[in-house]
């Protein structure tokens, strides 16, 4: 058993998993604060990446492009709150979920319609060259992405637990009515949350885009965030990271070690099957809260 090879694959998988975690983080934010499962998260990643890369291609300065895209995501948050969340406020969660599917298609169509459907390459100055750590090779880019993710998680955790807005967000997640009763303005909260999620989507989009190019398939890669959420729990920020790591590592390991025996392409379904098996044992995820149904 070639341990260094195993470690290389595992670490590569872990770092790839970080990418999934970033997308999953966006889900968690929105779910935590509004109870909505935002299927359009992947589309938001795609949109953010597309706007950013279009500006960069027009020779905009990286930082300015970032700021401008972030502004666009804020606009998106307002639009979503107005057009999706408010009209659907009394509907069961299933309807909201399906609405986000519709939203995903709408965002994709608009993004591509306005900005074009070609694949864009994106270079943010971090080369994908390997660094030697002992006997294993690790990609410099992957390490950078992991670093970014850690910083993001730290920032978000602090935001939620220490700031006034963060507390309000947690209140809203717990009980909408109660939060309203205490005077927390729901609509503003939702805009803030979707903006935060947009910010995370932007970061994820830039990193993913640099890695694999900005293209339509980004939206479906986002589906992989679902098993991440199942493993990590839908409401836990650290859970999103852990879940991502597990999915990334297990997916790569399965592909490399089990793949040759049954056929390649296992990574397409492995995370979902893993999530299913996991759900059978623990329906609320590693970190999620157990819900007791009272009759």
């Amino acid at each position, binding site marked *: 058993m070639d341990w260094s090879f195993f470690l290389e694959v595992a670490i590569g998988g872990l770092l790839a998993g970080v990418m999934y975690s970033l997308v999953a983080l966006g889900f968690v934010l929105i779910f935590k604060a509004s109870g909505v499962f935002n299927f359009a998260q992947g589309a938001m990643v795609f949109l953010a990446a597309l706007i950013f890369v279009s500006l960069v291609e027009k020779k905009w300065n990286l930082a300015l492009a970032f700021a401008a895209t972030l502004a666009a995501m804020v606009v998106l948050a307002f639009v979503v709150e107005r057009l999706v969340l408010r009209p659907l406020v009394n509907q069961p969660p299933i309807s909201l979920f399906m609405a986000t599917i519709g939203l995903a298609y709408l965002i994709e169509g608009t993004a591509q319609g306005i900005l074009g459907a070609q694949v864009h390459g994106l270079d943010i100055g971090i080369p994908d060259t390997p660094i030697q750590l002992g006997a294993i090779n690790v990609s410099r880019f992957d390490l950078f992405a992991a670093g970014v993710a850690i910083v993001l998680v730290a920032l978000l955790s602090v935001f939620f637990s220490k700031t006034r807005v963060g507390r309000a967000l947690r209140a809203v997640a717990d009980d909408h009515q109660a939060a309203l009763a205490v005077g927390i303005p729901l609509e503003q909260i939702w805009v803030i949350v979707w903006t935060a999620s947009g910010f995370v989507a932007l970061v994820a989009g830039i990193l993913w885009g640099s890695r694999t190019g900005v293209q339509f398939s980004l939206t479906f890669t986002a589906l992989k965030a679902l098993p991440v959420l199942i493993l990590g729990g839908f409401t836990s920020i650290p859970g999103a990271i852990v879940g991502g790591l597990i999915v990334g590592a297990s997916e790569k390991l399965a592909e490399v070690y089990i793949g040759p025996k049954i056929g390649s392409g296992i990574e397409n379904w492995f995370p979902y099957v893993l999530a299913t098996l996991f759900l059978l044992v623990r*329906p609320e995820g590693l970190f999620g809260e157990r819900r007791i149904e009272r009759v």
Partner: protein
Amino acid sequence: MIYREAGQLKSSYEADQQIFPILQDRIAFLGLLAAAFVLVPLVGNDYWFNAILIPSLILSLAALGLNILTGYAGQISLGSAGFMAVGAFAAYNLMLRVPHMPVLASFFLAGLVAAVVGLLFGLPSLRIKGFYLAVTTLAAQFVIEWALTKFSWFSNNSPSGVINAQKIVILGVRFETPVRRYVLTAAIVALLALAAKNLVRSRLGRAWMAIRDMDVAAEVIGIPMLKTKLLAFGVSSFYCGVAGALWAFAYLGSVEPQAFDLNRSFQILFMVIIGGMGSILGSFLGAGFIVLLPILLNVAAHSFFRGGVSQTLASNLELMVFGALILFFLAVESHGLARLWQIGKEKLRLWPFPH
């Protein structure tokens, strides 16, 4: 005025429980059947059959399947296309490997195979609910797509997994022309739709709706969860399987696993949402709507943008319109076109009076 029920009193339970208790509805439906089976074959042209009628009928069947599972039994599924794929490939293999296999029997058996696969992937629904179940059905979708592409046995060792469906010959009659394929499809779909309508208005249908509305209470009254949920998955997959077989045999002729990918699953889900969840009629309305929409958009774009519109812009427009429609229907009329139809009929009852 014409749509009054005055005077149509029911004096027996049988009469009260008919599918079309109102005489005008019965007449209208018979008219529709006559049009579908007599008029259309006579006057229709090949383009209509090939591009519109046959695919919408087949997709209505798949939408029926999904509606049973999601609209009536309340179990979300994002994997309906996967079960279509199972049906298509099962029918192909049955025809290929079993000597003297009659085509209709192969469709039926293909449906059964899809039902069994559906049952298997439906087992998790006993512990898992809601969004989580959606993820499980995604697993089904991806595993099925992968398996059918990877294991070349399914496609008789064809290089890209493409299968060429055999020709349909029933009792010596060849069903190759668009008209004939249309009539065959319409007949199969009509029969299965009737069966579905019967199921949802009997004991099983009520059991499904009970677990959709409040499963704890359903269990307490004695409705068996295991059996009811599995039957929902099984019947739903049967319908999707037959639809898949028809897709390969009566529509495209040759098909590869990618024709039944996640996009197709979403398309069927949209049909159910727009058409109306928990409605047999809705499945047909939704399918027709979604098949016609791109064509209408194209025509509109052409006349609007004089000189045509690029392919990419057109497909993006499609995505935008779909997305917007989903949002619209969910916000405004969450019971879809079927409910709009019902409201229309109610207004007709009163017309020309306002109330």
